[in-house]
């Protein structure tokens, strides 16, 4: 009895460290399978838990996917306005060409497009109601225009760029839609805040849901825990199956989240395409790629383990054989 009372855990007959390690890893391997099959014994209940976790996991991810698409596709292609730089010199002049070079070389500038006086005239005449007006001129009264797409997306940064360009030789005036930019950054700010709040809420929810489910499971297993402790199971021995259970709950939840995300994208792809067409852009909602899917599964499993660890630790200590 003396030697069996020295260690803690699974050591009644193992004096040998290797034997003990083998028993430990056997227990882990066995639990990996047995906890899943225990859960599968109640398929309805398991599916419900997975669904709840899946919903909670999928929503912040869907939202962040949407935000990614918006900031990548829309702002670049559509929402982000070009500045119009009105020239005070003819667009064929050397000053204008030099300005064009400078702008093209600038790191703050994305795209540069020259609209010559002739092109401007044609564009202007096609505007409704002004066709006749210009016919009255013998000479083209319009200046050349350089359209500049800034790299910067922040309103203040773009204003600064506009001022710099306005100071250059050959520039008459720079115009851009400042109000629209302000609005855009306000909208993005709100979206970011919402997303941040949702992320916190949902990660919390997943941990809470898993923890809560496991807490109730533990209360259900009170008898098992008491008897195991009565026969000398250490705390970590008793805790182990619950950790694996948490793993499976989180992992399965992530699997369902994966399905929810992919089918939501399918469900949304129709109206999103219509929107994209109206922008004459061909972007579409992209599904999760391989790495992201793996990340999702890892996240689910991690949250599951975390949730079970927290709740088991709190409750296992309380349960003592009577």
């Amino acid at each position: 009895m003396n030697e069996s009372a020295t260690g803690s855990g699974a050591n009644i007959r193992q004096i040998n460290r290797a034997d003990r390690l083998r028993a430990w890893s056997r227990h882990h391997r066995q639990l990996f399978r047995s906890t899943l099959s225990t859960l599968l014994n109640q398929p309805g209940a398991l599916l419900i838990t997975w669904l709840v976790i899946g919903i909670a996991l999928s929503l912040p991810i869907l939202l962040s996917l949407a935000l990614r698409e918006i900031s990548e596709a829309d702002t670049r292609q559509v929402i982000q306005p070009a500045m119009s730089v009105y020239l005070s010199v003819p667009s064929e002049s050397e000053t204008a060409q030099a300005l064009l070079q400078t702008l093209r070389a600038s790191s703050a500038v994305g795209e540069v497009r020259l609209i010559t006086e002739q092109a401007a005239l044609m564009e202007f005449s096609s505007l409704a109601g002004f066709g006749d007006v210009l016919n009255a001129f013998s000479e083209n009264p319009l200046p050349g225009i350089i359209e500049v797409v800034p790299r910067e997306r922040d309103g203040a940064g773009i204003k600064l760029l506009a001022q710099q360009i306005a100071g250059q030789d050959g520039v008459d005036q720079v115009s851009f839609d400042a109000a629209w930019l302000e609005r855009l950054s306000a909208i993005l700010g709100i979206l970011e805040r919402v997303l941040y709040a949702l992320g916190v809420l949902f990660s919390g929810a997943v941990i809470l849901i898993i923890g809560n489910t496991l807490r109730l499971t533990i209360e259900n297993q009170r008898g098992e825990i008491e008897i195991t402790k009565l026969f000398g199971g250490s705390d970590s021995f008793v805790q182990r199956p619950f950790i694996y259970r948490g793993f499976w709950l989180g992992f399965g939840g992530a699997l369902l989240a994966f399905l929810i995300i992919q089918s939501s994208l399918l469900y949304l792809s129709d109206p999103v395409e219509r929107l994209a067409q109206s922008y004459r852009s061909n972007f579409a909602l992209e599904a999760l790629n391989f790495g992201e899917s793996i990340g999702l599964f890892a996240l689910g499993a991690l949250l599951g383990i975390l949730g079970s660890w927290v709740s088991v630790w709190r409750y296992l200590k309380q349960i003592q054989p009577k």
Partner: protein
Amino acid sequence: MLVFDHVSKRYPNGYEALSDVSFSVEAGEFVFLTGPSGAGKSTLLKMINGVERSSRGQVHVAGQNISRLPARKIPGLRQGIGVVFQNHQLLFDRRVYDNVALPLVIAGMKPTEVGRRVRAALSKVGLTGREGDWPETLSGGEQQRVGIARAVVHRPPMLLADEPTGNLDPDLSREIMSLFLQFSQLGVTVLIATHDLELVESMPARRLQLQAGRIQSP
């Protein structure tokens, strides 16, 4: 092997279930614990495997002072003690096999060895071939025997049994008791709380009598 040294136990509600209990038991001894309902028999047994702690006095098991044992050493202590507890039934969501195998799984024994031992223990209590059954489908006496098999399957150096034959008929009770007696002859220290005075008197064993928390003069 087992020493109670002026042990008292007062429960949180103020009730003193044991008062100044002193006795000792040698390794391999076979001891009956008797006394009326509420005398403190279960309380005494629970103090040996650390389920309850003494309020005053010391309990020594195999040279260790249980009253001072840190919590992390309790599992090791319990692995060396087989128990049949009054209220502790089986796990109803596991088959008879898994119920009996529990102490061996905790000890980390190899699956092949576990199977051999479980079958041996079940046959000792007259339940050969029932390892695949669910506890629910067993009669009260059969369940109690599964509990006894679980207590002895890992051949612990000490065995505590609280009313192990309450649900058994007289013939079976006698068989189970003689099984316990065999264990003690192999060196296992056995302590049994029971009401079955007839059986106690028919066995060649020492008897500790409790009355309202005190040991009666023998």
